């Protein structure tokens, strides 16, 4: 079964390197009421969850980061986007605000991506805060491990910084 969508019918975004055009899905807007109701469900599941935005415009986690909240881009294209926009893997202990966290599901497939907005070093451990858009639902500020279980677990970290290895943590 082929589950990837048909690229021929889509609008696209061009990557930074200009080598790829990534298709965007045409998704209808959700009502603000629906977004608020779902947000209440998530906040009852995850007490520290902060609702950032209930914008009805249809974009997802990938579109939030790679298309400035203007598009829905399937998570299946995430590695193409990261590669074509010159992102590099970075160890978790070296991430800083502005880097990205990629979540993976139990099948080890990319399931979600978020923008790191704060890293607090607490002795040997880190408190990492993230902004991310949860699919068709709202945009949240959350601790890196505190997401809906369907979004998977934080697994890989990426940076666009050219000399990330030299930035002190």
């Amino acid at each position: 079964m082929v589950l990837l969508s048909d690229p021929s019918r889509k609008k696209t975004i061009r990557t930074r390197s200009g080598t790829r055009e990534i298709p965007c899905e045409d998704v209808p807007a959700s009502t603000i009421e629906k977004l608020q109701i779902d947000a209440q469900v998530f906040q009852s599941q995850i007490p520290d969850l902060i609702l950032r935005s209930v914008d009805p415009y249809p974009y997802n986690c990938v579109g939030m980061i790679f298309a400035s909240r203007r598009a829905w881009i399937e998570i299946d294209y995430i590695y193409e986007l990261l590669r074509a926009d010159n992102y590099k893997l970075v160890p978790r202990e070296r991430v800083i605000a502005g880097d990205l966290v990629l979540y993976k599901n139990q099948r080890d497939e990319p399931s979600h991506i978020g923008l790191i907005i704060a890293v607090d070093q607490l002795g040997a451990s880190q408190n990492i805060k993230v902004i991310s858009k949860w699919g068709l639902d709202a945009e949240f500020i959350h601790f890196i491990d505190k997401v809906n279980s369907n979004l998977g677990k934080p697994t890989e970290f990426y940076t666009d910084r050219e000399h990330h290895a030299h930035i002190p943590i």
Partner: protein
Amino acid sequence: MHTSLSDLTTVIESIEFGANLRVFSGFNSFYGALRENHTINQLQQLLADYPAENEQLLLRLKTLLAQNDEPRYAHPHDVPIASYLFVLSNVSHNELAIEAAKKVLATANLIWAKRLAEIVLAEQTVPHES
């Protein structure tokens, strides 16, 4: 004693079930979650054990399709409709799944259900190898 069709549809049409399945950012992730969902698997088993319930589920799907108070926006029952289409396409006679898929594609502003319906109908057009 098995869980009834009504019990399962109540869970699948709940706010919490819908919210948890609206978080995906790709159809493949959504599809994978349907395959692994306990309630969906229970419904699939129920329909396999009691084939007469297939018609009831199709009726419920059609009822939900017609319930959309704000047609300019995403259909409010996209997740349960997609769930029922998924189950019908896995366990029912082809005719029921095809009928459901056609109804879905004729309804505006569905998201996951529309993507699934396209696949269901595409698979029907592929000739089986002998």
